[in-house]
């Protein structure tokens, strides 16, 4: 079941004009920011398919930038996101692409600051609902509808168990988990959907586990 809540159907409350091109776009921006863990200083926003063809008229551009500024779908400030970004020191660039993607509404956000950068691919599947299909080159499926944590780690035995143990210690229940790696023995990514938002101190503890290189979270 892709759509689980009645509020996926009756909702979201949002700034028009398009749930997939405006609200979904804002959510993709916001999830990317959540995963990055802080306000990025720059963003290269690649748009594919229908996003690339119609982003100006749909406000997809202001919505994604609004999302990067942590605005929700119904935040009236989406309309002034470009000016707000300037004030917040966020530079952005839109790059419409011609390549065909699996889903017609796809955006690849490459965001960063002096400390690092991150690449997030989001797709808008309709009615304001989104999925994250790739993070830093790792394929995954993340709906953004559940709180989740992403753990980048070395592909070593015991890493997954150590993270699971740490969550268990804090009585955090795992709803769904996926592990993917680009190449065996190198870097891997755990995507863990959990039942409730977790505190930063738990993330901090996970990040101290050997072979863990980066931890980020999506609240819901």
């Amino acid at each position: 079941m892709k759509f689980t809540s009645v509020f996926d159907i009756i909702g979201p409350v949002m700034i028009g004009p398009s749930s997939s091109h405006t609200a979904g776009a804002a959510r993709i921006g916001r999830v990317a920011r959540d995963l990055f863990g802080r306000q990025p200083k720059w963003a290269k926003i690649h748009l594919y398919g229908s996003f690339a063809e119609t982003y100006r008229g749909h406000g997809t551009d202001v919505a994604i930038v609004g999302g990067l500024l942590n605005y929700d779908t119904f935040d009236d400030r989406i309309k002034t996101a470009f000016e707000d970004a300037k004030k917040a020191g966020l530079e952005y660039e839109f790059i419409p692409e011609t390549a065909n993607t699996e889903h017609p509404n796809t955006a690849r956000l490459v965001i960063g600051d002096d400390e690092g950068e991150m690449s997030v691919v989001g797709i808008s599947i309709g009615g304001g609902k989104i999925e994250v299909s790739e993070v830093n080159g790792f394929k995954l499926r993340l709906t953004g509808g559940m709180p989740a944590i992403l753990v980048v780690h070395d592909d070593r035995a015991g890493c997954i168990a150590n993270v699971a143990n740490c969550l268990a210690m804090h009585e955090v229940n795992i709803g769904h988990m996926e592990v993917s790696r680009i190449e065996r023995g190198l870097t891997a990514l755990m995507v863990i959907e959990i039942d409730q938002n977790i505190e930063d101190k738990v993330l901090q503890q996970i990040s101290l586990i050997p072979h863990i290189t980066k931890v980020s979270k999506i609240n819901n």
Partner: protein
Amino acid sequence: MDVLFHNVRELVERAEQEGKLISEIMIEQEILITGRTREEIIQQMDRNLTVMEEAIERGLQGVQSVTGLTGGDAVLLQNYIKQGKSLAGDLLLDAVSKAVATNEVNAAMGTICATPTAGSAGVVPGTLFAVKNKLNPTREQMIRYLFTSGAFGFVVANNASISGAAGGCQAEVGSAAGMAAAAIVEMAGGTPQQCSEAFAITLKNMLGLVCDPVAGLVEVPCVKRNAMGASNSLVAADMALAGVTSRIPCDEVIGAMYRIGQSMSPNLKETARGGLAATPTGKAISKAILENGGLQSIKALQ
């Protein structure tokens, strides 16, 4: 995931066996899936209802979109109703004007509640606030209207699509019209089975509807399609309440919609490459907006 219903047949059977309304089954499923309390869920829907009401009020005062392509038609319709000359009937035209009002606000980047999407956000509230004047529902019944709509939308979203880019406008305005029809029937005192008949009759008549927005914007023909979706749902609701049934069962109609969407050319699925978007005027409008800086050049066109 464990859900109470996967399709309309299961939804109707459960409602009938337990002697409950469709809206009640949807509320129970929401509690089951999210673990939130009934009170929290009702409150959130109450807030969505308020957003819908405010959007209609704003639209009925007259709004204009950024491009200037849409706006002001809801006001024209209300003025026409007041003249007492309506041929189709005041309630029907009231629903049409309120659907248009919502979509005009949406096109103007105002605040709306997507039902199921922003492009199709007019049908469910438009019909609700028109029928309200006739049936005088309580606030609770109005909230239930949205849960009933949501139950049918839930089935479509999971078994077909509610995205114009994936399934054409039938998936957006078509789904919205079916959802509204089912909710009208429940509010008017019809049975769960009659809700299902109304949904099926409505969606059957929206099948094959292409998504061909001019310049890719949620304006032309989206606003007027919401108007027609609203009228379609009222007629279908009346038919179902009169005892008319759909020869093709509801779930099979939804399946047909899914397959039609799959076989539709990408040109007709929100890419602005076909249909009305590809007419000479459609292309001229698109060029004026996307290349020549919008509003002023559009006005010059008219």
